[in-house]
């Protein structure tokens, strides 16, 4: 609680005490009104003062003015107890609102508080605390346990665990050692790291993220704009109605002045628009906070709103659905075991540093006994010939592409793979089998696609610059609805435009890419989503939503969060407007008292705020 809030709590406690005393003494002593007066002043002496000050500033119809007129009006017609009660409850509600808003502001800004205050720069062999802005590329900095990494760089000395939660939403620490790249905004948990800086602060990850977060409030959702426009007409309309209610019935129809003024005062109490205005941005803010806690940064609540109704999701292939790294995906021996074939290939390729050879050795994963490797001859453009000792026998292996097999007159008896590159292995003239190396599909992609379908996405599309048959094969494997291959970056924009024209009315199209070469497409889609955002400046700039990790499955979380937020916003708007209108009708008819009216104001905003806070509390299903 802030100082201001503590003082208010004390004032309200005192006010409540005197209010209770007034109720007890009422009817027993003529001076009971003194208790009520003290209670009123303790709770809200500043309200009429503010009303006067704001009127001097040219601000009519603010909540201070409305509460002042309503309570003075009630006192004027002798409803003293109610006037005091209304003021007391109004202030209790305000205090609660203030507290709740502060609390959620803080919980979210803490989450986003990744701004490093200083960097330990090594200068002439000594450490010096400097502003991260002052550090240049190539400088060395030291990061101690518990400190934030101030700039992007490469570890030159030391090992340690990094907490990258603020960047990726991932709570598992990342271990780093010499020559590993580290990103600003993460926290060093243990070990002292010496780091060579690779980016200026302005270009560093932390600066990019902060800029993104700061701008998040710039683009507002339709619901937010609706509610501010509604509030703008709501208050004047209700105040005018109150005036009519106070004057017309007594003047024209001989109604009793006291009764109608009382009803008009109830109107004024309900006329404050704050409950509405506060609950909508608070919900969106909570939604944005929940998303960033899951490693999903959104550049505005309008995108949070748009994610709730996705019709088409278009994926880029390489680097998005696939890892972009080549791995052994298939081992097909015609005789013997897979393990045996892979072992022979790994031995044969042992001295090679070709990417394919590296993938084979990685897949084999065991240490190679070099003494078993005899003469190895590289046949450029074809493969290799290697002599491997297998027990007593010497094997003359041919490992390479189809051309090598053809040249050596070896018949390939199985089918090669469409999606990847095949490596054929033969012992002399005897064909042993093939090993396929291809770009691998990300682990969580099947789950992500299933989840998107379950969430009501009508169409899943993949665009790729890769060969159409490769695209088709990947698309079939994943069960995508449409695949377009062989596209140049410019063609992708055309395809997305075509898909945009075919989507359902009122629904949105999202494009998911890794940010490389797809900036124009990211911009053209209703929602441009960049994946693996950290470290890629282009992605952060071009996209509307940045998924910090390499997990397409985060899309499901993003949709769930946006739907939950949208639901809460809708509930709040309907609930707040509904209750207010109901109370207006009831008090015009004389059924609802001023007590009901104060519920219509304060009670509704408290409930709406409590509901809005739910948006922040999203738990992933994993």
């Amino acid at each position, binding site marked *: 609680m802030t100082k201001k809030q503590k003082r208010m709590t004390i004032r309200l406690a005192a006010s409540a005490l005197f209010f209770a005393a007034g109720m007890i003494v009422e009817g027993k002593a003529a001076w009971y009104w003194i208790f009520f007066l003290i209670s009123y002043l303790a709770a809200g002496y500043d309200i009429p003062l503010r009303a006067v*000050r704001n009127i001097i*500033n*040219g*601000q009519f119809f*603010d*909540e201070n003015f409305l509460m002042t007129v309503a309570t003075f009006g009630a006192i004027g017609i002798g409803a003293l107890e109610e006037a005091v009660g209304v003021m007391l409850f109004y202030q209790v509600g305000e205090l609660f609102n*203030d507290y709740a*808003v502060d609390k*959620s*502001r803080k919980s*979210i*800004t803490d989450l986003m508080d990744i701004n490093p205050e200083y960097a330990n720069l090594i200068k002439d062999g000594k450490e010096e605390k400097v502003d991260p802005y002052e550090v240049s590329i190539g400088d060395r900095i030291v990061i101690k346990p518990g400190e934030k990494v101030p700039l992007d760089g490469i570890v030159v000395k030391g090992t340690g665990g990094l907490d990258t939660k603020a960047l990726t939403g991932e709570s598992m620490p990342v271990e780093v050692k010499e020559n590993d790249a580290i990103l600003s905004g993460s926290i060093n948990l243990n070990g002292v790291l010496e780091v060579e800086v690779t980016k200026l602060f302005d270009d560093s990850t932390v600066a990019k993220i902060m800029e993104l977060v*700061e*701008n*998040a*409030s*710039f*683009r*507002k959702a339709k619901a937010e704009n609706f509610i*501010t426009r509604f*509030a*703008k007409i709501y208050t004047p309309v209700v105040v005018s109605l109150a005036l009519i209610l106070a004057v017309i019935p007594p003047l024209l129809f001989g109604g009793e002045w006291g009764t109608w003024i009382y009803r008009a005062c109830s109107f004024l109490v309900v006329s404050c*628009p*704050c409950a509405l*205005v*506060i609950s909508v*941005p*608070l919900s969106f*803010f909570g939604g944005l906070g929940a998303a960033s806690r899951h490693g999903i940064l959104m550049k505005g609540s309008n995108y949070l709103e748009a994610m709730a109704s996705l019709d088409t999701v278009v994926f880029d292939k390489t680097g998005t659905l696939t890892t972009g790294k080549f791995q052994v995906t298939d081992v097909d021996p015609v005789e013997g075991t897979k393990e045996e074939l892979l072992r022979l290939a790994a031995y044969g390729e042992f001295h090679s540093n070709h990417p394919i050879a590296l993938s084979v050795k990685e897949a084999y994963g065991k240490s190679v006994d070099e003494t078993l490797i005899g003469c190895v001859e590289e046949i450029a453009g074809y493969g290799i010939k290697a002599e491997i000792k297998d027990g007593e026998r010497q094997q003359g292996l041919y490992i390479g592409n189809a051309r090598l097999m053809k040249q050596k007159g070896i018949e390939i008896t199985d089918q090669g793979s469409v999606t990847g590159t095949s490596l054929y292995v033969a012992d002399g003239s005897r064909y042993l089998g093939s090993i396929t190396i291809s770009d691998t599909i990300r682990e969580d992609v099947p789950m992500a696609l299933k989840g998107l379908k379950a969430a009501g996405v009508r169409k899943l599309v993949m665009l790729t610059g890769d060969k159409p048959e490769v695209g088709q094969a990947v698309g079939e494997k994943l069960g995508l609805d449409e695949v377009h291959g062989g596209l140049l970056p410019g063609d992708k924009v055309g395809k997305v435009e075509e898909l945009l024209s075919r989507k359902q009315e009122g629904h949105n199209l999202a494009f998911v890419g890794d940010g490389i070469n797809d900036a124009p497409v990211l911009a053209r889609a209703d929602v441009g989503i960049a994946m693996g955002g950290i470290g890629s400046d282009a992605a952060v700039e071009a996209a509307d939503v940045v998924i910090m990790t390499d997990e397409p499955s985060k899309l499901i979380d993003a949709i769930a969060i946006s739907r939950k937020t949208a639901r809460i916003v809708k509930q709040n708007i309907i609930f707040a407007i509904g209750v207010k209108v109901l109370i207006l009708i009831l008090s015009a008819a004389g059924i609802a008292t001023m007590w009901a009216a104060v519920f219509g104001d304060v009670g509704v905003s408290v409930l709406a705020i409590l509901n809005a806070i739910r948006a922040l509390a999203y738990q992933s299903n994993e």
Partner: protein
Amino acid sequence: MKKIIKLEGLCCANCAAKIEEEVKKLAGVESAALSFMTQRMTMEIEESKSDEIIEAARKISNKIEPEAEFKVIR
């Protein structure tokens, strides 16, 4: 140019909307958005008029929400 202003202690959501509305009407302001939750106002303004615009925005803020402290962040 972009200017970011913090309105510390901004405690009335409706006032935030009013301030935003009036700042948007200032000459030289291309766009402005005030987020009640972050208490930040982001303005896209003409560079040559930046001092006048910031002064005018400060006046608007003081008029509508005197409790909020007007701080230019950058």
